[in-house]
């Protein structure tokens, strides 16, 4: 088994920093390449790597990681010929006409209306990922870091603050981030059904096709060239991707009021009064887990109430007709596990595991845990969705398009993902439904609205620590 070079991999991809309850993602623009590289040269030793903290060592109160856009790499001094080695989605960014169609970023989610990362916004070059065990610690650390880059030719465009809500819930009121793939060779172990090859998430290792992912291999010598590892196939080029990966960030505003109003309206008692139990049940069927995390496929009728992170389950054996967890539910679509389309169990797992991401969502806005009767947060709330993958096309974009936006999964006709796939405006005769498979007849919940609005986003290169050191040498 290939062991990961954990001391060279930045920590956030392997470790979720679950004890870091507050984070600030600082979006920076490179104004002066020389000063910026100098700053990077001082910064890189402070980056958190993926090695587990030794048992006896004191727990750290802060963590720090960094990622770069394609534009950012060029502004730091990477030669354009070297940039060409990076995969197309990263080079082009999240906002191209084709990508906008794949993502479904239309109407209020149109990139032209974004707050950052869109064509009308300032150029994001670097995102500095600052974490602290609580808000104060994080912000103090940020202030300390800011003092250093303030006069180093970098300009702060914006920051995105994220936090962890009580019981790890998101604003609609559901426990989030439970299911994560286990990376082979990372030190963590888990169910073999949920374990994937490191090359799905870290460049330079074999992926689930047993081949190497498309890592940027560059051959136009510049900077401290020998800091970079050689290309594994012996071409003499340098592998700038090794131990790095791609980070996707999307800021998603959540309309908690619309979400619970829709659930309440579609679950009323016969006399028109609110039925909170039915409302929660409908929402849970759409999510695929109950608010406390229990999977609907194992608890189809009632929330077992206790917090439940149970994740070692499938659909093939006990729920292949979707009678417990509907085919269209968010977690079943975004990871079909052992019941992918009409494939057999083993084949399904093989295929599902070729489209996984490591999710690292953090919440923004006022702390608010939604429910049928608590549906109006104070001000804007949402999620700073972030995820890691080695192949943006095959992983993040595939999931967003083929599994969430595409309305004809399984035997469905007009059912996009209820949380992340529904369109805001449909064409004249287009329906948008959520079907609950049932006996004797299926139940259709109609007129599904869109509950989230994209407010910003970008694709970032999340390099190895040693590569950050190399980048610091580009305009020295």
């Amino acid at each position: 088994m290939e062991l990961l070079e954990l001391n060279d991999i930045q920590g956030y991809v392997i470790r979720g920093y679950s004890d870091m309850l507050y984070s600030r993602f600082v979006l920076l623009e490179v104004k002066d390449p020389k000063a910026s590289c100098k700053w990077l040269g001082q910064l890189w030793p402070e980056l958190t790597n993926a090695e587990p903290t030794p048992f006896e060592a004191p727990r750290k109160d802060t963590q720090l990681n960094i990622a770069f856009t394609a534009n950012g790499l060029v502004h730091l001094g990477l030669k354009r010929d070297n940039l060409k080695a990076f995969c197309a989605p990263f080079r082009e960014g999240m906002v191209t006409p084709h990508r906008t169609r794949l993502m479904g970023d239309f109407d209020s989610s149109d990139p032209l209306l974004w707050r950052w990362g869109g064509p009308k916004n300032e150029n994001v070059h670097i995102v500095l990922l600052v974490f602290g065990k609580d808000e104060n610690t994080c912000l103090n650390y940020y202030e300390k870091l800011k003092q250093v880059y303030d006069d180093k030719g970098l300009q702060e465009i914006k920051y995105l603050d994220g936090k962890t809500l009580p019981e790890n819930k998101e604003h609609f009121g559901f426990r989030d981030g439970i299911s994560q793939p286990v990376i082979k060779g990372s030190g963590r172990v888990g169910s073999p059904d949920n374990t994937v090859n490191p090359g799905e998430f870290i460049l330079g290792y074999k992926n689930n096709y047993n081949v190497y992912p498309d890592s940027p291999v560059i051959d136009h010598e510049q900077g401290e060239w020998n800091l970079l590892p050689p290309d594994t196939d012996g071409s003499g080029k340098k592998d700038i991707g090794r131990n790095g990966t791609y980070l996707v960030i999307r800021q998603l505003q959540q309309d908690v009021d619309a979400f619970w109003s829709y659930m309440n309206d579609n679950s009323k008692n016969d006399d028109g009064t609110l039925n909170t139990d039915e409302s929660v049940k409908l929402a849970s069927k759409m999510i695929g887990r109950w608010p406390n995390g229990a999977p609907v496929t194992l608890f189809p009728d009632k929330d077992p109430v206790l917090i439940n992170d149970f994740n070692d389950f499938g659909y093939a054996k006990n729920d292949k007709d979707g009678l417990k967890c509907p085919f269209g539910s968010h977690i079943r679509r975004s990871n079909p596990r052992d019941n992918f389309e009409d494939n057999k169990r083993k084949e399904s797992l093989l295929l599902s595991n070729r489209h996984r991401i490591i999710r690292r969502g953090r919440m923004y806005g006022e702390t608010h845990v939604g429910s049928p009767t608590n549906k109006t947060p104070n001000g804007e709330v949402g999620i700073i969705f972030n995820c890691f993958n080695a192949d943006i096309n095959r992983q993040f974009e595939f999931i967003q398009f083929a599994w969430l936006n595409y309305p004809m999964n399984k035997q469905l006709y007009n059912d996009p993902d209820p949380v992340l796939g529904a369109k805001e405006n449909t064409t004249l005769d287009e329906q948008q439904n959520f079907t609950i498979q049932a006996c004797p007849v299926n139940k259709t919940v109609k007129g599904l609205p869109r509950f989230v609005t994209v407010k910003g986003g970008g694709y970032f290169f999340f390099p190895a620590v040693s590569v950050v050191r190399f980048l610091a040498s580009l305009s020295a």
Partner: protein
Amino acid sequence: MTKQNALTIITPIAKDKYDDLFEYLKKIRLELEANQHEQFEDIGTIHYCRWVVIDHPHRTYHHTTDESVKAKLVFTSNYDGPKNEQIKDLCTKAANVIDAIYCYCEGYPIPSERTPESRVAYLDKHFVKTTAFYQGSPGRTLNQIRNEENLRNTLKKIIENGKWDNMSCKQIHGKIKHEVFAMPEFSWLKEKAQVPTVNYFGLIGLGIILLALLPLIIPFVLIIHFFYEKNDEVFMLKRSQLREGQMKLLESYEDLNYQNQFSQLVVMKKGMVRLIAIKALFAFANALIRNLFVTGKLMGIPTIHFARWVMFDDNKRVLFFSNFDGSWQQYLGDFIDKSGWGLTGIFSNTTNFPKTNFLLTGGAYDEEHFLAWSRSTEIPTEVWYDAYPHLSIKNVNNNTRIRTMLTQSLSEQCAQDFLKII
């Protein structure tokens, strides 16, 4: 059962008319994107059609076998009924479109000589035979697909608006059957739907033939491996190394709705051995398509409406066309996941393919290089018409199943299965 067929017409473009033709094709494309498709609709039998240009010095990225060849316009369609009628319909019901496009092609009748007959004669002359042809819903005419969609939507409405408490599935089935049969718009339900099924006898026959040929096949594959594959020039690029302009152009036609098209042009490797190999594999593929892949999956891929291979140019080149559900990434991923060996078998006989071993292994299983190869051999589709972009091939086949089960008398268990799929 009315047969679905594949039409391919390849015509040389007049040398000074390239730009005019592109301009006109673009006009049609924009009209189609704006939902103006009456001309295609009026013919009433076209499921899909497209125009692509090959051998254009600037527009396409392919080396031809001969540098002096002229750019050609390729028209392909999937339609119901006999070929002659289809060409005739094109030349009468869509005569203005045909004239407006083919006036830029060599040898097309001049305006004063344009008659339905002269148009037909022209298209007929440039007709090219299909080498292998797959249909996701064999025998379903466009009309039937539309009717059955309408039926499914009506059934769904009846179920949503009805009260079914305390009724058995069998009773529900009986009740909605009664209701629908009383509706005049569904009088066609009296005709029985003919749906092909897997032909096990045919498959056994095929197995016997293969077994009998094994003493020939094994040495043949060994010869290919040791004398041909070892010397092959193999495709080594990754997606990140492809031409940016080409990728952008291809993507600009993609994901406008939930279906897409794929057009590909590849060049055969030289020599009789490769020709025999590909012809044998096409014959094998055709046999499987006729006998086994009749229920909506091509080698397990559940998203293909139609696909075809066309050998042309004296068997020196191969065109591949398909119409499928979902995105490019999804489609090509399916090919690798489900039918890597089949694709490898065929395309390993064409130049510059990722490295193969023993004809069937390697190749498509080399994920990154295979994806890059697929993109690099893809050609832009100038015009693409799709008669039912909102229906997946699974939907089409499910609708037929609903129709068939509706008309039958069902047991309680079968009635339950019937209600499940609505």
